[in-house]
C-alpha cells in the first residue's frame, strides 16, 4: 500500500472515524483504523464492535493499492499537527506504516488487516431515506435525555420510531423523557421501532447536517445502517423493550404558565450555583404573574430569583433537579416556553406554547 493525499482530504473522515475508536480497548486492533486504498478511493474504518464507521475520501495519487491498520488516535494527532494544506504520503514498509510529509517522517506500528473485525452484514429488511436535517433535528431535540450506564440497558440509547409519514425519537433516563416527531414522506409497513445505543446516536449525529440531502437508512433485525454521501455508519441495536412514552406524558395538568425561555434559563442557571452540587434541587413557587425560584445547599447558602410569567391559577410549590429544566430550555427553539403542572408529586410537561413537535416530561423532586 502506498498513496498520497492532502491533509484536509484525510483529516475530516479520519477525525470522525477515530471518534468511534474507544480509548480503552479489550482487543488491541480496535484502537487502530483500517485504511484501504484502491486505485481511486481511500476508505477508513473504525469500530468498537458495537458501532462501525467507514469514511471515504479521494487520494491525490495511489501508487500501490492495499490495506493496513494503524493506531487511529496517533495518526489523527499527527495529521492534525501538520501544517495546513500539507501533502501526506503513507506507505506500508516491512510491516510498518511510514508517513511522510515535507521534511517530517513518522513510522507507525501496524496490526494484521485480517484481525480487524467487521460488523457482520445482516439482512437489511427495510430501506428508506430521510432528509438529514430532519433526523438531526430529532436527535438534537432528544439525545440529552438518554441514560448513561443505567442497569436498564435499553435506556442507554434512543428509540427511533419509523412509521408511514412519521418519524419519532424518544429518550429517557427514568427521571425525564424527551420525545420529538416530524412528518416525513416515507412508507413503512408495519411501523418499525429500534433502540440505537447511546454511542451510536452520538456518532451518527456528527455525520448529519441541516440540509435536505438524504440520509438513507437500512434497518436490519439487529443492526441499523446509515449512508450519507461519503460515510457508512453501522450500529448494533439494543435488544429490549423501550418504555411506552405515551403512558408517561401527563394529561391532567391544570396549572399552565408561559415564560420567556432565555430569561427563565438564565434565572435557573444562576440559582443553580447555590443548589446542592450533587442533587441540584431547586424550588419553584408559582403564583399569579410570578415564578419564584429558590435554591440552597448544605452550607446553608441561598439563592432566590423572581421572573414574570403568564399565569393566573392557584399558587403551588414544586421541586426539580435544575439541570433537567435547563436541558429542556437549551433545546427548545421558540422564544417562549410553556410548562404544565398538576401537583408537587406529578410530572411536569414542557413544550412550545400551544405544543410543538417536541414534548418534555420532567419528574419533580420531593421538597
Amino acid at each position, binding site marked *: 500500500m502506498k498513496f498520497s493525499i492532502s491533509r484536509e482530504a484525510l483529516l475530516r473522515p479520519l477525525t470522525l472515524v477515530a471518534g468511534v475508536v474507544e480509548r480503552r480497548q479489550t482487543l488491541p486492533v480496535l484502537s487502530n483504523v483500517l485504511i484501504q486504498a484502491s486505485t481511486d478511493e481511500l476508505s477508513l474504518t473504525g469500530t468498537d464492535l458495537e458501532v462501525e464507521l467507514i469514511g471515504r475520501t479521494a487520494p491525490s495519487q495511489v501508487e500501490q493499492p492495499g490495506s493496513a491498520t494503524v493506531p487511529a488516535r496517533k495518526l489523527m494527532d499527527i495529521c492534525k499537527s501538520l501544517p495546513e494544506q500539507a501533502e501526506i504520503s503513507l506507505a506500508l514498509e516491512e510491516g510498518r506504516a511510514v508517513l511522510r510529509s515535507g521534511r517530517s517522517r513518522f513510522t507507525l506500528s501496524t496490526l494484521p488487516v485480517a484481525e480487524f473485525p467487521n460488523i457482520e452484514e445482516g439482512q437489511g429488511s427495510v430501506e428508506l431515506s430521510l432528509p438529514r436535517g430532519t433526523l438531526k433535528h430529532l436527535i438534537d431535540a432528544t439525545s440529552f435525555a438518554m441514560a448513561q*450506564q*443505567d*442497569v*436498564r440497558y435499553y435506556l442507554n440509547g434512543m428509540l427511533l420510531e419509523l412509521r408511514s409519514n412519521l418519524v419519532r425519537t424518544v429518550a*429517557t433516563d*427514568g*427521571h*425525564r*423523557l424527551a420525545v420529538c416527531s416530524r412528518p416525513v414522506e416515507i412508507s413503512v409497513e408495519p411501523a418499525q421501532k429500534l433502540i440505537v445505543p447511546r454511542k451510536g446516536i452520538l456518532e451518527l449525529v456528527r455525520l448529519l447536517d441541516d440540509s435536505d440531502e438524504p440520509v438513507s437508512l437500512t434497518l436490519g433485525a439487529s443492526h441499523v445502517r446509515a449512508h450519507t454521501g461519503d460515510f457508512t455508519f453501522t450500529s448494533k441495536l439494543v435488544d429490549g423493550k423501550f*418504555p411506552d412514552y405515551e403512558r*408517561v406524558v401527563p394529561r391532567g395538568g391544570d396549572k399552565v404558565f408561559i415564560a420567556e425561555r432565555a430569561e427563565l434559563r438564565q434565572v435557573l442557571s444562576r440559582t443553580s450555583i447555590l443548589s*446542592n452540587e*450533587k*442533587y441540584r*434541587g431547586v424550588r419553584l413557587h408559582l403564583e399569579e404573574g410570578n415564578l419564584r425560584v429558590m435554591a440552597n445547599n448544605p452550607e446553608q447558602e441561598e439563592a432566590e430569583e423572581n421572573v414574570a410569567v403568564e399565569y393566573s391559577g392557584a399558587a403551588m410549590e414544586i*421541586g426539580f*433537579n435544575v439541570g433537567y429544566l435547563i436541558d429542556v430550555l437549551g433545546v427548545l427553539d421558540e422564544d417562549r416556553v410553556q410548562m404544565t403542572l398538576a401537583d408537587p*408529586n406529578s*410530572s411536569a410537561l414542557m413544550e412550545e406554547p400551544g405544543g410543538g413537535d417536541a414534548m418534555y*416530561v420532567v*419528574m*419533580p*423532586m*420531593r421538597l
Partner: protein
Amino acid sequence: MRKILHADCDCFYAAVEMRDQPALREVPLAVGGSAERRGVVATCNYPARAFGVRSAMPTAKALRLCPELVVLPPDFARYRAVSEQIQTLFTELTPLIEPLSLDEAYLDVSEVERFRGSATWMARWLKEQTLARTGITLSVGVAPSKFLAKIASDWDKPDGLTVITPADVDGFLRTLSVAKLHGVGPATTAKLETLGIHTCDDLRQRSLAELLERFGKFGRHLYQLARGIDEREVKITRERKSVSVETTFDHDLPDLAACRQALMPLFDKLQQRLARHDHPPSDKRFVKVRFDDFSLTSMESMGTASDPHGFQHLLEQAWQRGARPVRLLGVGVRLVPEDAQRQLTLFDEG
C-alpha cells in the same frame, strides 16, 4: 462551647460474658471465632490483655500467647439487648446520641440542664447507672469536641472518667502523641515521625501549606486537630451507606470453582440482611476477596441486589486479580443516598 461525651463500654462482649458467668472474671477470656475456624478475637478481658492478646488478633495467635485463654463464640443477640438498655439510659440524659457501634456512642449534652449543666456529673451519673442497671462498666470522656472526647474516654480505661475542659485543651494537646489523633493510623504515624513530628505541638509548628502538600486534604484535618478544632456534630442518625456480609473460611478455597460455590450462601445471607432493612434501594453491588496472602481486592458494578449472576461475574473478575487460594469472601450493595431518593421516577419498576 459544646459539651460532648464519648461513652465506651469496657471490653463489652467479654464484660457481658463475665457478668453472666462471674467465674470468668479471673481467667483470661476472649470472645471471637475459634482457632480451628480461623476466627479472630473480637474482644478480650484485661487478664487476657496482660498476655498480649488484642482484638482483631487471629485466635490461633492469641492461644499461642496465652494457652489457657478461654474462647467463647459471640452471642450478638444478648449483646444487642444489653446495648439497647444502655442506649435507653443515654436517652434519659439527651436525645442527641450518635451510636458508633453496640458499645460506643457520642452524646451532645451542651443543652442539658440537669446536674446544673455539669458534664462531669452527667458522666459520673451515666457510669453509676450503667453499672447498677446492666452490670457493665463504662469509660467516659468529656470534652468540647468529638475527637477529644474519644481520646479522653480511652485515657484511663477501664472504668475511667477523663474530663478535658476548654481551658485544658491547649495543654492537653501539647504533649499528645499524633498517633492518638482521629484518622492517624500506623502508616501516617510513621510518615509523621520521619518528618520529626511526634506530638501535636510538633504538628503545630508546621504550616498549613506544608501539611497540605505532604498529606493532601488530610493535611487540613491534621492542622485543625492539632489546634483542637473539630466541628463535627453529633449526628443522631448515621446514614447507612451499604449492606454487606462476609465470611472467613475454615479452609482456604483452592480455586475459582470453590469460590463460586461459596458465593451462593453469602448471597442468600445478603438477601436476608436486606430484608431485615426493608429492602433499601441500592444501585451498585460489590464483591470483596481476600487471598491467602492477605491481599485484598474488591470489584464493584452498577446493578441490582437480587441478581446472583451479577455477583458471580464480579467474583470472577476479582478472583482473576490474584488467581490464588481465597481466605475471605464478601458480597454487598451500595445504598442510594436518601437525598438521591428525593428525585421521583417516571417508571415504577425498581
